[in-house]
């Protein structure tokens, strides 16, 4: 249909037995499909953007002018109170530490749970190969539940504080890491395991001595990457729920004008922490994966 509608006019149909003409014909057709797909995509993006803009409180163009207003207002107020900033940074340091502790604990717990799930979900390593689908679906489910859902429900039961955030992030981390761990464990060499099995080693010893040393660099690198993500997640959860520097940010923001020096101190701490942990973890991951 397409080549009748858009192709050369009837009567001058290309001779497809001629390889050159056939190639040109094929390319033209491919390009046409690509173009149609692109147009469709552009139309979809434009329509989607219009819909989103309609539902928004402010529209895009008028908002664009105000984009700098809030940062300017915040920064100018913070500048006039700049003498407070070092003190405020010092004051919010414990909250930042709490946010980082939430992320670290969640990554630690999530990595342990993820490793257990991964070992159960990897076909050639599992203790009970019949149960691998169960482990896999559990990991999928844990991965699919957003942290905020678990966090808000746990806040209702456990009250505020860092523990709901830790558990929420840890559950999601367990699911995400289980998938990555299991993928790298699938590629592990089974010869050490066979060697250990021949000496009569138990399953736990085979895994501990035969598999873990092989996958440890990869697993650690994934866990570090997850830690970077979790630092951000724990800041956001603090803002929506409770605990850590995110909560302080929410309190300072709710106050509005007059406490913008606090907002700036928190922004700066958060920004620095994210950059520092990104760099540290990138450096460590490079060393782990590419060797010394």
């Amino acid at each position, binding site marked *: 249909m397409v080549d009748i509608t858009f192709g050369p006019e009837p009567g001058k149909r290309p001779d497809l037995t001629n390889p050159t003409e056939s190639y040109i014909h094929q390319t033209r057709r491919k390009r046409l499909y690509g173009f149609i797909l692109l147009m469709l*995509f552009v139309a979809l*993006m434009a329509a*989607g*953007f219009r*819909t*989103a*803009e309609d*539902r*928004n*409180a*402010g*529209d*895009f163009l008028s*908002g*664009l002018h*105000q*984009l700098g*207003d*809030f*940062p300017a207002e915040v920064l100018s107020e913070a500048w006039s109170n700049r003498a407070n900033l070092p003190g405020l940074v010092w004051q919010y340091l414990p909250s930042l530490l*709490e946010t980082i*502790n939430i992320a*670290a*604990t969640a990554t*630690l717990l999530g990595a342990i749970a993820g490793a257990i799930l991964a070992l159960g979900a990897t076909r050639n390593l599992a203790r009970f190969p019949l149960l691998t689908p169960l482990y896999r679906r559990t990991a*999928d*489910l844990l*991965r*699919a*539940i*957003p*942290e*905020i*859902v678990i966090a*808000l*429900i746990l806040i*209702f*039961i*456990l*009250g505020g*504080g*860092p*523990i709901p955030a*830790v558990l929420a992030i840890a559950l999601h981390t367990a699911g995400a890491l289980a998938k990555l761990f299991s993928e790298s464990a699938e590629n592990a060499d089974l010869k050490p395991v066979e060697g250990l099995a021949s000496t009569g080693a138990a399953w736990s010893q085979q895994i501990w001595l035969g598999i873990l040393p092989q996958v440890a660099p990869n697993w650690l690198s994934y866990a570090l990457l997850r830690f970077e993500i979790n630092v*951000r997640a724990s*800041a*956001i*959860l603090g*803002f*929506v729920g409770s605990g850590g520097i*995110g909560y302080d*940010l929410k309190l300072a*923001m709710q106050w509005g004008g007059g406490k913008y020096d606090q907002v700036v101190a928190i*922004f700066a701490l*958060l*920004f620095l922490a*994210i*950059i520092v942990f*990104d760099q540290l973890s990138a450096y460590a991951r490079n060393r782990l994966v590419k060797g010394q």
Partner: protein
Amino acid sequence: MTDATYVSVQRRFQTRRLTAFAIPALILLYLTYICISFDIAGLAARARLDNAAILTADFVSYKTHVTRDNRSGDLTIAIEGESKGTYAPGQRPDWVQTSGDITRIDLGKGHLVTYDSTGARYVVPGYGTIDIQPEDGKLKLTAPQPTPDWINVGDTRISVTTPQGRFAYSRSKVETFKYQPGWELFFFTLDSPFYGKTYGQLTAMLMGDRIDPARSNLALMASDFWHNKMWHHADVAWALFETLLMAFLGTMGAALVALPLAFLAAANFAPFRAVRFAFRRVFDFLRGVDGLIWTIVLARAFGPGPMTGALAILLTDTGTFGKTFSETLENIDEKQVEGVRSTGAGALQRARFGVIPQIAPVLLSQVLYYLESNTRSATVIGAIVGGGIGLLLTQAIITQKDWEEVAYYMLLIVLMVMAMDTLSGWIRRKFIKG
């Protein structure tokens, strides 16, 4: 074996043995510190297990309030106590029976509640009768002694909680909550002609005479379901769409913005080292500021809504994509570009025919991965900027009463993320592995 190698092997064994103990010990030490700093010991005191019980019960069941106004004597029976779920007088369920002033409520398993003109009585099998009568503005309780802890007695309010339901008497009203399994009114509300019908009856109604002469019964049924006043299916579907829209616009927009910029940040394409350095720092900045801060700043300029959420995702991911795309560009095979160059192609044509075909599968795979992960982020961002299913979920949790709605939204979010996961996996397999 020489002595030197023997010593060095011995030393390596020793350090290994040491680390094998040191690492678990360090982890344990850290967790101990966390236990103290997060006050795990105090958790037991703070935890509200009764809240957990309400929550799990509410997830899978609904309650019906049978309320009598003690001043006017009016009786209302309402699902979840909402006016939208109030039974019309002729429609009352068979476990509530009224004759004159007397109302009998059968909570099941022999639990009987009776309201009458003197007060109210609750018969609990194996315990006895709890009788409450107002006297001089106070409540007089007659019940077998000693009073168990599931009866809460105050001067102005007495409440009873049993596995079969809850009962509360105050001066102004007397209320009984009956719990029943399921999510009531999920399909049709009480005012719909289709309420309480079995599947067989519904099929028969589809074939039968028109209830509303203006449209077919199927259309009426669809509209009654879609505009269900308790569950708001239309609004929920729209919210899900809004969340997906935020993730789609943010991810795709970021990919479109980042692709040309990545050329300027890649070592083998950047015209000057300074340009490359500048763009790398811009990407680092966009990523480092993080979605949370972008969301807050953008919400101030554009107001709450899905566009703000989409733009926040767009900004953060422009940083991420800029970094990963430029890394991909640095790893391309130069030979193909050389080949295109030898035909006399310009810079744009070299990029289009020499570079893009090489990197397209990698880029597509990254974009799809982020699309899936952003569906989850869009739920959280929606809760902050006020759009999509994230907003509905946080509102439902904050009101702390409609937990079955929370369960419903959670289920929908999980299904949505899993669907996106499957879809992106399918596209990846289809387009990338051929």
